[in-house]
């Protein structure tokens, strides 16, 4: 793995850092895919989902449930689960728990979503995001994080 890419990834600690990354001139979808392949999909996705869990703002049972994420990368599809509870959230690889909602997207779409730059309804309309299960829960969920 390039030291540059690993070093850059290590400096992404908040959605604001993610926005800085996406704001770099030339950081297009294909370049993001190269970045992910260079760092390793699971390395970057682990970091992104842990960041997401840390930024969840719990609010009782209304914001509770398991969210299944199927993320397409240039090296294959990766599954993660985000467990939203009344007290906080945590992330895990895999698809063991029955999800309340399932979201499928590419890595660039995921990064934009975590950076607070993606309107999920518009993304659904464009086909960038696919949802199955509790649609309302899935559409509202991106609003429950501190960006």
């Amino acid at each position, binding site marked *: 793995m390039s030291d*540059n890419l690993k*070093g*850059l990834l290590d400096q*992404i600690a908040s959605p604001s850092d993610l926005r800085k990354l996406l704001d770099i001139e*030339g950081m297009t979808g294909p370049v993001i895919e190269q970045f992910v392949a260079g760092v390793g999909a699971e390395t970057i996705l682990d970091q992104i989902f842990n960041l997401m869990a840390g930024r969840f703002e719990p609010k009782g049972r209304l914001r509770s449930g398991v969210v299944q994420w199927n993320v397409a990368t240039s090296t294959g599809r990766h599954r993660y689960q985000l467990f939203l509870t009344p007290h906080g959230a945590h992330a895990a690889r895999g698809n063991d728990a029955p999800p309340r909602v399932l979201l499928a997207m590419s890595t660039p779409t995921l990064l934009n979503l975590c950076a607070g730059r993606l309107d999920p309804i518009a993304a659904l309309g464009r086909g960038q995001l696919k949802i199955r299960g509790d649609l309302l829960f899935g559409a509202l969920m991106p609003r429950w994080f501190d960006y």
Partner: protein
Amino acid sequence: MADVNELGDIKALITQSSAADLKALLDQLSADEVKDVLGRLDSSDFPALLEKVDPAVLERLAQGISHPSELKQFLELAGGDDTVINAFVTKAGTQIMLDRVFSLMGEHFLAEKVGGDSGTVEWHITTPDGEKIYHLTIEGGKAEGAGGPAAKPRTTLTMSGPDLLRLCAGTLDGITAFMHSKIKLSGDMLFGAKLPQAFDTAA
């Protein structure tokens, strides 16, 4: 001399002239006229010229570079070959060439590309004469290049001399160079990664 056309066949002139005759001839030309001469050559002629030409002519030429497009012309003449580019820079004077490049960087800085950020960027340039250190101070939407290390660099970029020239000429894609480690970053990498794209290299 007003018209370089009076010199006749430039390629033959360079091939057939002795080093002393070539120096005597080029000494009579202004920097702009030397650029005109170079414009009539192609990359296969450049190594022969480089071998014969007096360093003082290249030094004058390097000091006369006033726009990234002229840098691009030199790189095209060198055929993109690092060995030829390094030979040109060494003969023209590494410090003279780098001083000019960092001055150009300040003149062609695009503040909007760094989103209003400020800070000092240290550049480590590897050359046949060893590593040369420069810094670029970005503040108030302006940038100013200078020789030597920065007191408190926010980020450090390391690259080869030919890649620096390509970057400033607009022929090296900064993000690709970064992804493939042609440009190495340390310090605030999210700031540093924006810099290779922050110079107006359009002709």
